[in-house]
């Protein structure tokens, strides 16, 4: 199954709070799990990524938690800021002649000042 299911569709968080976005997948051939951040009027840009041989990756306020047995991964944004307000996409890649990217449906995050 070449899908990545993402939730929630939208999220409102107070400044300083924790934002959590979840993704789930079925295909065990997925081998790279990036998160992309998209601001209005811009293309998505890589935020942080993880490979399935680690359970967590942290970069500043952004952390990916990865649960291989449950086929789930999540993005945690600590101390959320109004500047984090954007749309976030989880993704997964797999090899089929070349590496293809499968994206989740996106989460629109709004951080209130």
């Amino acid at each position, binding site marked *: 199954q*070449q899908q990545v299911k*993402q939730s929630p*569709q939208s999220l409102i968080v107070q400044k300083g709070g924790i934002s959590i976005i979840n993704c789930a997948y079925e295909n065990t051939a997925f*081998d*790279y799990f*990036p998160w*992309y951040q998209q601001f209005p*009027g*811009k*293309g*998505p*840009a*890589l935020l942080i*990524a993880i*490979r399935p041989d680690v359970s967590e990756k942290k970069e500043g306020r952004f952390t990916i938690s990865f649960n291989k047995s449950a086929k789930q991964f999540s993005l945690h944004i600590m101390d959320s800021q109004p500047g984090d307000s954007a749309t976030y*996409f989880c993704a997964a*890649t797999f090899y089929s*002649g*070349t*590496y*293809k*990217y*499968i*994206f*989740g*449906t*996106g989460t629109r995050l709004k951080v209130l000042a």
Partner: protein
Amino acid sequence: DVKVTQSSRYLVKRTGEKVFLECVQDMDHENMFWYRQDPGLGLRLIYFSYDVKMKEKGDIPEGYSVSREKKERFSLILESASTNQTSMYLCASSLLGQGGTEAFFGQGTRLTVV
């Protein structure tokens, strides 16, 4: 600074017109992709290419074709535009690497078909 450049930010075309969306990358990437972005549906893959003159269908290729005559350029063609092709179109490129590599996106082309 690496770049994926899409030729137009906004386009308005009439139903039935042939539409060309152009994308150029300056990173010498083997892979190039065209996605369509619609609210609630995320990014859906239309076509991709991993080499010059090579193309593969993605998940929603109907009504579209592509051309890759040079490594740096990947064009999306709407043979006969229809109103249901009104959308945001995103081009991306990536290295042909093992284990997945970062995809770089252009700024998008918002196409309106009237």
